[in-house]
């Protein structure tokens, strides 16, 4: 199945991976490399760790791997805060791994962590050869998993599997951005990029994700799962295996992200059509994956002018994050990522709430009332375009171009183009809606009003004013998801707080009046009191 795709429109580099030789330290003619490899001997604790880890992989020791995976971060903090982990040559040199292919799988996994650490921690980021090597390492990993006749005997924690897919796309994104920034590159660097059009090629990345989806039968599994059946009954030999099943699921989220980065919001939502977003499921146990999913889904909805859906999506996940906040407080780079994404989602929610005011969960609402966000919202409500631009720029994903820049023409800001296009689409929408917030503030004041009179208030001709009213109705009425798993489906609804209709030349206005809610408040206070009581009773006098 997997190999059928290769060679179809161009030979995917996945095939060449085996022939690629990782340039050993010192052999490479890239002088900048040496800077990343200070000479040091491997600390004893790290040696021990690597040996344990190697054995756990050799023996397929499922129970030790999760904690070993977590230890990687701990040891990074202790020994490798700003320098890279020992490279594979060093492991051979210290006799930590065998040369006889016995440790191939361990080395692939080790390299996965090794390069990911370089991307995250090393100043100046990875060099071009490192980007290439990391790409080939992913090819090796996916080749191993996908080309096997029977499921490979490998079990990794879900968290790691998620991070493999997440990182794979992140590195693709990072490479695309890097490749487009021609201005700062030397001749040999540009040559190197020109000669390797297949590395981090968008087709290969899509191919990997699609293959993982197909191999695991995940779509069929999800279909059966949502209709209450047993997914194993349709999973097939590979899909029953947790490694394949979870990689398949995470690849769907990966596709969601990838399509969003390319500006294809329709496909982004469509790939998730078998995932029931509004329900908890057995597939959703990795928090980072959940948060990423909702971020991209919410963003896609916002761009599609489905504000009610975007607002629901963001509120759902933000409530979840608030409840589980304690989990994300320790500082490591995964949590930094989550916290950044949370902040971005609050900003996106603020944008949506300005464009489409409606009632939301009290907990989330109170966060929007905090100073900086409240000020942003106030500025946006006053139609200050720079604020919209700023919020969008801060909160949007890092859009990318799927093709290399024209290497031979004059350097320009190619890396910014995809972002600028999405920004333009969004700002055009904001422009079209510019009159609406003023209209809303006027309408709020009355229950009935002759058109002529209100047109005069706003210094508009009656025709222009009528257009503005029609535009208000049109923009406030959007497709909203109602049922089913497909996030694309929905009905036209109007959830606007202020609504109206016209009878002849008279406007009839309907407002939403919300009485103060006290239930939530009391419950929260009761819980707080209980907690105080509990901690008091623990105090020994």
């Amino acid at each position, binding site marked *: 199945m997997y190999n059928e795709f290769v060679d179809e429109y161009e030979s995917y580099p996945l095939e060449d991976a085996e022939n690629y030789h990782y340039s050993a330290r010192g052999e490479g003619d890239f002088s900048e490399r040496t800077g990343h490899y200070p000479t040091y001997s491997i600390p004893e604790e790290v040696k021990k760790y690597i040996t344990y880890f190697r054995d756990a992989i050799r023996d397929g020791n499922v129970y030790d791997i999760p904690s070993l995976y977590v230890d990687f971060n701990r040891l990074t903090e202790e020994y490798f805060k700003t320098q890279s982990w020992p490279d594979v040559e060093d492991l051979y040199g210290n006799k930590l791994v065998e040369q006889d292919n016995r440790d191939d799988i361990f080395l692939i996994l080790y390299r996965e962590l090794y390069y990911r650490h370089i991307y995250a921690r090393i100043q100046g980021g990875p060099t071009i050869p490192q980007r290439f090597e990391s790409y080939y390492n992913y090819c090796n990993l996916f080749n191993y998993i996908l080309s096997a006749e029977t499921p490979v005997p490998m079990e990794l924690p879900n968290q790691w599997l998620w991070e493999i897919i997440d990182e794979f796309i992140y590195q693709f994104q990072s490479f695309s951005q890097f490749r487009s920034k021609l201005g700062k590159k030397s001749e040999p660097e540009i040559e190197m990029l020109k000669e390797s059009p297949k590395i981090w090629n968008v087709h290969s990345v899509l191919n990997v994700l699609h293959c993982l989806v197909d191999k695991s039968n995940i779509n069929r599994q999800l279909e059966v799962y949502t209709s209450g059946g047993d997914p194993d009954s349709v999973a097939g030999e590979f899909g029953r295996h947790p490694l394949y099943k979870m990689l398949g699921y995470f690849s769907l989220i990966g596709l969601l992200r990838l399509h969003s980065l390319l500006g294809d919001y329709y496909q982004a939502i469509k790939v998730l059509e078998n995932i029931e977003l509004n329900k908890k499921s057995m597939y959703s146990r990795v928090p980072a994956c959940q948060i990423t999913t909702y971020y991209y889904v919410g963003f896609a909805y916002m761009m599609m002018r489905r504000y009610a859906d975007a607002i629901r999506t963001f509120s759902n996940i933000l409530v979840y994050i608030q409840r589980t906040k304690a989990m994300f407080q320790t500082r490591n780079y995964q949590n930094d990522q989550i916290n950044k994404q949370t902040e971005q989602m609050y900003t996106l929610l603020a944008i949506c709430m300005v464009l489409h005011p409606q009632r939301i969960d009290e907990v989330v609402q109170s966060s929007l009332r905090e100073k900086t966000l409240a000020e942003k919202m106030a500025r946006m409500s006053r139609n200050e375009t720079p604020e919209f631009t700023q919020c969008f720029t801060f909160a949007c994903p890092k859009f990318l171009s799927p093709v290399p820049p024209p290497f031979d023409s004059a350097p320009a800001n190619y890396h910014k183009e995809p972002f600028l296009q999405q920004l333009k689409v969004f700002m055009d929408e904001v422009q079209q809606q510019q009159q609406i917030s003023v209209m809303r503030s006027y309408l709020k004041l009355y229950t009935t009003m002759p058109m002529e009179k209100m047109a005069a208030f706003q210094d508009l001709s009656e025709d222009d004013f009528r257009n503005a009213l029609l535009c208000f109705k049109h923009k406030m009425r959007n497709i909203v998801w109602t049922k089913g798993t497909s996030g694309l489906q929905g009905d036209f609804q109007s959830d606007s707080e202020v609504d109206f209709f016209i009878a*002849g030349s008279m406007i009839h206005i309907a407002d939403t009046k919300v009485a103060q809610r006290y239930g939530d408040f009391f419950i929260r206070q009761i819980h707080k009191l209980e907690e105080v009581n509990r901690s008091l009773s623990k105090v020994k006098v």
Partner: protein
Amino acid sequence: MRSTVASMLRGIERYNPENISTLERYVELQARENTYDLEANLALLKLYQFNPGTYQNTVACQILMKALTNLPHTDFVLCKCLLGQEQMEDANVKRIMYLHDLLEMCQFSTFWNEKDQYSNLTTNIKDFSDSIRKYVCHVITITYQYIEKQVLSQLLGNVDEVALQAWMSKYGWKADEDGNVFIANQEDTVKTKNITEKIDFDSVAGIMAACR
């Protein structure tokens, strides 16, 4: 054709550049026969994005024009997101963007007045004006309880009496003797809402039981 194309777009095949010519013919067909397939058109724009050398400006314009005919849906925005900045600079694309702005902002009179200047873009799209009128009718349906007949005809592009009657009967709108056209009763859907919190015993019972 729709099902052949749909099967072409499954899985990784969707990105096969060899599909481009078929999809382009399909766009042509949609324009000629007044049919519409958003997903196929988006797939074509994506192929252009992946293979910039194959980009056909006239086809892209047709896709955008077809997206206009599917207002009030936001198909146009979805298509726009897949274009590049350079492609947006094209004079025809810019004109279509302007038309889109007019329609989204419901400036229908301006749209009808200026429409003739864009005949090079509209002639190849079968029933273009009527598709736009459908969108206008949608906006009227959600806004008006009743509307002056003369305003209605103006919003529809100053159509003659016969055409106006045809649109009215299509939507079931009835004219009265005062020159008004009854659209729909809005009083049931658009009304002031008072939201008060209701707390029932069951939701309090849990927390009461927990406090001793």
